[in-house]
């Protein structure tokens, strides 16, 4: 049950990356072959193919991000439920928001060529990042409080 919950989001992320890579290599390559053979019934015009690749790339980023978030969430639950972290229980609560923040930064670094100067997307990213950091601080304060009381 836990294995399924932890592994399934990773499979989703891997599928998203695999699908994008497949599109980039095989679909683009086949379109060129169709053009060379003069088969215009199957050939896709460059504007449409580029549109597909751009949308696919963003979907890939989103799915990887969602998949990894679900993976982290389930991993934390698994570790907590199994009682592996009895002493340093708080460390996982601190690592979780930082891991998601790192994911967001990675996502925006990789996708910077597409985002360009689009402030709407950037603002959404900054908001998520700030939320993660606030979450981190909240967890930190909680841990300190619990330890002080103990």
């Amino acid at each position, binding site marked *: 049950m836990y294995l399924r919950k932890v592994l399934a989001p990773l499979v989703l992320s891997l599928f998203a990356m695999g699908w994008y890579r497949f599109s980039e290599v095989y679909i683009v390559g086949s379109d060129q072959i169709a053009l060379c053979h003069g*088969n215009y019934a199957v050939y896709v015009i460059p504007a449409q193919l*580029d*549109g*597909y690749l751009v949308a696919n790339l963003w*979907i890939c980023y989103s799915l990887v991000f969602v998949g990894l978030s679900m993976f982290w969430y389930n991993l934390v639950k698994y570790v907590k439920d199994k009682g592996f972290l009895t002493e340093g229980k708080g460390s996982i609560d601190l690592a979780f928001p930082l891991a998601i923040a790192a994911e967001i930064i990675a996502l925006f670094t990789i996708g910077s060529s597409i985002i360009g100067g689009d402030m709407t997307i950037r603002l959404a990213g900054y908001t998520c990042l700030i939320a993660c950091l606030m979450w981190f601080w909240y967890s930190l304060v909680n841990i300190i409080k619990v330890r002080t009381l103990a």
Partner: protein
Amino acid sequence: MPAQVLEPVFSYGWPIVFAVFAASGFILGWAAQRGNYCFVNAMTSIFTTKSFERFGALLLLFGLSALGTGLLVATGFIPSSDQFYFNYFGGWYILVGSTIFGFGAALAGGCNLSMLYRAASGYVQNWIELFGMMIGTYIFAIGIWPFQLFTMEKGILSTTAGGYVEYLPYLIFHSVSNEAVLLTTLMLAIPLIFLGIYLQIYTKRKWNKVARGERGIPGIFAVPKLGNSLGLPSPTVLPEKVKLSKEIKDLILLRKPYGTNLTTVILALDIILVFIVGAGYTFNYLVITSSDGGRFFEYIMMMFGQNLFITTPWFNDSLPIVDTSTLMVVMLCVGAFTSSFLSGDFKIRIPKDRRRLLIGFIGGILVGIGVRMALGCNVGLMWTNFAQLGYDGIIFLFGMLSGVYLAVKVQERL
């Protein structure tokens, strides 16, 4: 003669079009999985339990879709050419294909929509059905398509063109004006909606009578009325407002599946979204595996260095390498997977009776052959064609019903 021109209605470009189609695929997969929405089950239940509730929901779906798209055209928001441009040919093959499809899908245990969302929820039988459908598409391409194409070109029991030729406003009023579209929309959609609601009310009344013990289920004795004669404590009755907010909370938190009618409304809104966003760009309706079964088979073969679009009939003239439906189907699976995963439904399920796998495979082959002959599946042709204000969907509906009926009779004897 109406102009058959396709020009983008909105100027946002291809990335947005692909992204919205992908999002609509995600919504479709999510909602269908949560509502366990299956066209074949809706039809099977007519012949097995004499229940019309889900079939009524289907008619409601067709009616709402036709009403939504029709009103958008009638009010001039979307040009009529975007509604009829992708109307396919009509002929013998739709009736034969839909009957084969209905038979195969009922055997395999799912229509093209439920096959995909169940496969994404871990049902191995539907993986096998999907693979069978790919093989069926190949068999169709090699063995049937050349003959079918010949009859289509020569007009043997077939129209020789699609588009406005099959557009009901043009057939009835010889016009594609806003008024003609409005009248046709009302003539087609309103009866479907009322019939759908009537069938649902009729079934609910019937089941209420059964529950009250006034009437027996066909083949089963009447259920005795228990009431509170056993002295059991009666549950606390919640006020209506609290009940509704709890219901909404449960639906959002995925604790409860969606009701049939909620799913119907979500799906109808989904097709209307795609109809607007894709107008002038591409096939602006929902299209599921019917052609993509073939396309994904083509993709698999690409990895082995085989390009079917060069060597094989149908593959070489019917499918572009990629289009909006590709992402739609991929995201449908992702949506179904996500909802089943988050709600805790996701599980790899292998049927205990291994014969089900073989039946699923054979059913899948028949589904592949059937949908290709009919030029589309229950979503890409039947549901879509109601939204297109065509008549192929009506032919498909009756063909599919007869196929499902045959499969029910065959399964009773197995």
